[in-house]
């Protein structure tokens, strides 16, 4: 092999890279257009793959369901609706009558900031000939309901599940125990319901005594029986009638998004959908929309479900009770049952249980990372991840350009400072919220946080430290540029593997911003203008803005904000929600916001306001 040695050291770089650099100026536009077209092809359900199904989960589809305890439903339902005060006792009463073990578990929160307490009920059906090493979970909400009708619906679902339990206790073929959990939902907020479920699961998995976590938010009673490995969990709830549902087709609903972008195993959802099709001739509504997989011609715009899937994965940390199971890496679904069809629901539950019973190993040989187009089609990660790559390509190009210009490496101390500021915000906010709640010194915590996070520390540092235009400062800024570009790419890449939705939406905002702000500007005016723009592109503003407009764009029924630009209350609520979800369920949104979005924004000021007086390197390129 031969090298071409350049005078003054090193080896000549291959020319192809220099050619790429020519594209730098239009890279952003090119990447944007390319990503748009690619996405519109990949995310179109008609181009997606059909959901195949593995033999494990196909076989139970062939089992004839024999659920015949329909009479039990009415009886239990009447009992439940007679005494709504002590539903727990009623449920356990039934299970004890059937001589199945049933216990209740009280729980409360450990931290003053969050006042939640309640009582769950759990009951076992132990298979007679297994060793109890494994179990499957069935979860139902009890109590609560804002309106009377809603409470009745819940009771109906409880009754149907318990009727199934009554049927299942006489079956001999359970190779896995069935665990029924009745989650306390008396206080109607979703958070407290999820908290209740988490209280149970934490005791189930003994994470309270787990040496790796210091203290837990929840204090709950210990479980009174032996617990096996959970292979999957299904949460049943009354279906909310989705949009675009025709009256002639039966509609059930399914939700599978977990915390931090986890998703339920595709096999699990898939066999649920297949069973619904075969046994109940019903369709699965996803994200509140039912789309008949066979009639796309009638429908104008097929992207709604995929986009909502991405949005939900990205921003909805806890979609339902199943998300809490995801926290313990148990594949789980929430299935909305049509309460009007009692026997069919019994049959559905039975089929699901037998599917999970016959599945031989853990559900593993399937997709965990996918975007559903409808209940028959999905796009796998190999197809949709490139979108992210295309979007963030410009940053890589300009990073390489920066690198070729860099003379000396000079790490800016502000990189540390910015991150430490973020860390302080993070710890401060969470600590304060956990211990004093939303109000500290009768001021609103969120407002304090917002205030602290719109101060442009970067600007201050710039005027104080980097005021005079010396070679060191130039080098420092230049390296900060490189650092920012690489950091953004790296973060988006890592995030994209875990939580594609968040990464994608993050990239849509971050990449252009970073690209523009780190581009060398010769004119001082340009720098000032973009600095002002940067100031208004504060992460919180962007978050609120997108929260309002994305939801409207994705046709979510509920209205989010007053005006379409910014809404303080909404911002506060977003922050509170993020903190709460971090504390209760370990969602990473708040951490990401404080430890990456915020510092990047601060650091961008250094590069945004700086001007380079040496020639921009495209003239250099012309020379080459």
């Amino acid at each position, binding site marked *: 092999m031969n*090298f071409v040695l350049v005078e003054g050291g090193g080896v000549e770089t291959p020319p192809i890279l220099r050619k790429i650099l020519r594209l730098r100026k239009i890279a952003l536009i090119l990447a944007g257009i390319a990503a748009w077209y690619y996405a519109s092809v990949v995310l179109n359900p008609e181009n997606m793959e059909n959901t195949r199904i593995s033999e494990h989960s196909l076989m139970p589809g062939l089992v004839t369901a024999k659920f015949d305890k329909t009479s039990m439903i009415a009886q239990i339902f009447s009992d439940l609706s007679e005494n709504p005060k002590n539903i727990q006792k009623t449920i356990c009463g039934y299970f004890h009558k059937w001589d199945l073990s049933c216990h209740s578990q009280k729980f409360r929160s450990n931290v003053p900031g969050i006042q939640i307490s309640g009582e769950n009920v759990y009951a076992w059906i132990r298979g007679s*000939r297994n*060793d109890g*090493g494994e179990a499957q979970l069935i979860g139902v909400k009890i109590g609560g309901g804002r309106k009377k009708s809603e409470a009745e619906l819940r009771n109906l679902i409880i009754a149907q599940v318990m009727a199934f339990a009554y049927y299942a206790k006489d079956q001999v073929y359970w190779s896995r125990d069935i665990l029924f959990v009745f989650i306390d939902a008396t206080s109607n907020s979703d958070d407290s319901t999820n908290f209740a479920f988490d209280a149970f699961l934490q005791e189930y998995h003994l994470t309270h*005594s787990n040496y790796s976590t210091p203290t837990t938010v929840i204090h709950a009673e210990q479980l009174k029986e*032996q617990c096996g*490995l959970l292979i999957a969990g299904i949460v049943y709830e009354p279906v909310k009638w989705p949009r675009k549902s025709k009256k002639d087709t039966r509609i059930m609903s399914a939700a599978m998004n977990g915390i931090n972008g986890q998703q339920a195993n595709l096999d699990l959802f898939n066999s649920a959908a297949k069973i619904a099709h075969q046994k109940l001739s019903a369709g699965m509504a996803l994200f509140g929309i039912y789309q008949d997989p066979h009639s796309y011609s009638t429908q104008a715009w097929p992207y709604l479900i995929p986009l909502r899937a991405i949005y939900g994965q990205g921003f909805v940390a806890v979609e339902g009770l199943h998300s809490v199971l995801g926290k313990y890496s148990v594949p789980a679904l929430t299935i909305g049952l049509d309460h009007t069809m009692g026997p069919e629901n019994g049959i559905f539950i039975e089929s699901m249980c037998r599917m999970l019973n016959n599945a031989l190993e853990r559900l593993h040989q399937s997709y965990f990372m996918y975007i559903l187009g409808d209940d028959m089609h999905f796009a796998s990660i190999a197809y949709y991840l490139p979108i992210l790559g295309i979007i963030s390509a410009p940053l890589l190009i300009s990073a390489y350009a920066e690198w070729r210009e860099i003379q000396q490496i000079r790490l800016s101390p502000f990189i540390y400072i910015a991150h430490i500021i973020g860390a302080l915000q993070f710890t401060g906010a969470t600590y304060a919220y956990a211990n004093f709640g939303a109000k500290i010194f009768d001021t609103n915590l969120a407002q304090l946080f917002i205030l602290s996070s719109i101060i442009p520390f970067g600007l201050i540092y710039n005027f104080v430290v980097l005021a005079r235009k010396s070679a060191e400062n130039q080098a420092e800024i230049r390296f900060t540029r490189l650092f920012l570009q690489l950091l953004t790419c790296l973060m988006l890449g890592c995030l994209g593997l875990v939580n594609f939705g968040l990464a994608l939406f993050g990239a849509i905002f971050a990449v252009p911003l970073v690209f523009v702000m780190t581009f060398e500007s010769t004119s001082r005016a340009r720098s000032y203008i973009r600095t002002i723009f940067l100031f208004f592109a504060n992460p919180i503003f962007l978050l609120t803005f997108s929260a309002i407009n994305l939801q409207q764009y994705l046709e979510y029924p509920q209205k989010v904000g007053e005006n379409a630009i910014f809404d303080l209350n909404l911002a506060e609520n977003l922050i509170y929600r993020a903190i709460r979800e971090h504390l209760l369920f370990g969602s990473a949104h708040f951490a990401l916001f404080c430890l990456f979005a915020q510092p990047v924004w601060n650091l961008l000021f250094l590069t945004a306001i700086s001007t380079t007086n040496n020639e921009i390197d495209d003239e250099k390129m012309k020379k080459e």
Partner: protein
Amino acid sequence: MYRIFLLFTLCFAKEEYWENLKLDRVSENELKAEFRFGASRENLKNERDFEVFPRILDELIEEYDVKYLLVIMGQGRWKDDKWGRKTQPGAVHGAQVYADFEANSEEGADKKLRFLIEALNGILCTSLSQISLITSPQLEIFKRPKYSTSQQIFRRYGILSRETTCTENLTRLRKLLACRQSGISILLHPSKLYDVLYHASHLIVKKNEKISEMEVGITAVFKNKNPIQGSNWLLSSIFESKLSSSCGIATKSQIEANNQIYDVKNLETSFDIEITSKPISNEAKLVKGWTSQGGSDQQNGILHISLQNGDLDSKLEVSQILPYFVQPRYAKISFKNCQITRKALQTSKNEKSSALLQYEIIIKSGEKCEITIPFDKKILRLDDYPPDANHGMHIPAAVIFVSQKSDSYTIHTNPILVALPVPDFSMPFNVICFVATAFALIFGPLQLYSTMWLAPSPPRSTFWRKINRLILLILIVLCLYAHFMEINLNEVRRGIEQYLEKLNELR
């Protein structure tokens, strides 16, 4: 027929055979049946005639110097709080082997044991080869007989939770009985005995100076299939066969039911009874124990043993086997109101052998003691995984020897299933290639730079390099084509073979 045998036996060694069936109602519509068949034989030198004692067991004893051998197979879970004390020796889901035998050295003992296990597989139709038997240190596992012997006694114990028990085992156990077609053994109807809530069977072989004994036991808890028309516990309806002929050679052959003993030694007519006795109410006197597992990822987990004492102060000896695929965090093991008096730990250098952790605990009446053993889940070599690796592997149940002031008995917790981290099973070649490449990357330049020197050189023509690249490109294209067309190598081979055959025909 056996009159003639009796005629023969006059000159034989003294042998005895007895059989026993115990029937109890354990709850409203659950019934427990305990079969016991025993044979004993006095050891006479150079006396090789066998009448009722199975010859094969005697050979086993002689060949492997067995003092005490116990094999238990079980299926299902015993409900302590409903059914009272588990029938001793207590079974647990899977198979247990416990052996006392003479050997001259550790290696000799291991070798002997391997042969013994294989022999057992032959006799009982089991598949115990996977079981790892470990020496149990000072603490007891079962109540243990004492020996007076010259040679060294080795005591080995092991559980194989994966082992299943089914009708073929029962068939083999029946083969050991002297009366197969008569007496109580008629009632051993496989399809009934396995359609139950709980099934356990065991084989005990003992030997001392004077006599050698064997016992075959089968325990089953039946469930009344249709409780609506009352519980009809007729003997014939439970076992689907009448007790018609009696076992003549048995010295004792009796059925215990309804709190009385029926002697079925010599029947004339077919025998049948209904079990009418009310279920015995089990007050919570017993020690209960169960194991739960904690942890939610595949990196580390928790083994959580809960021991609930009854209303008697008791001394517990907990023995927990920790298989080789988990690594206990010894410093993190914690106890909740357990009063530990002795600890014992048995480990081994052998990679595949498991560790045995034992505690002696004093526990007051009505108290609950909890042992928490955090462990790391190990990743194993490809060959060490079971065929269904993703299903996980079992940590066997803890054996708890309870000794109270009045009596002593053995209980078990339940095995737990540990989901282990698994590698990709389709990768070996790729991984070898990648890592070897990494080594080549360092080796190449080292070799190059140490044997050659960087020096000015005239520019060389790149023609051959182009050719090489072209060839490589073609190869890659071909591979991709084969990959996407899913062409099987065997098909390619067959195509070539057929082509060559055609050529031969042409000639």
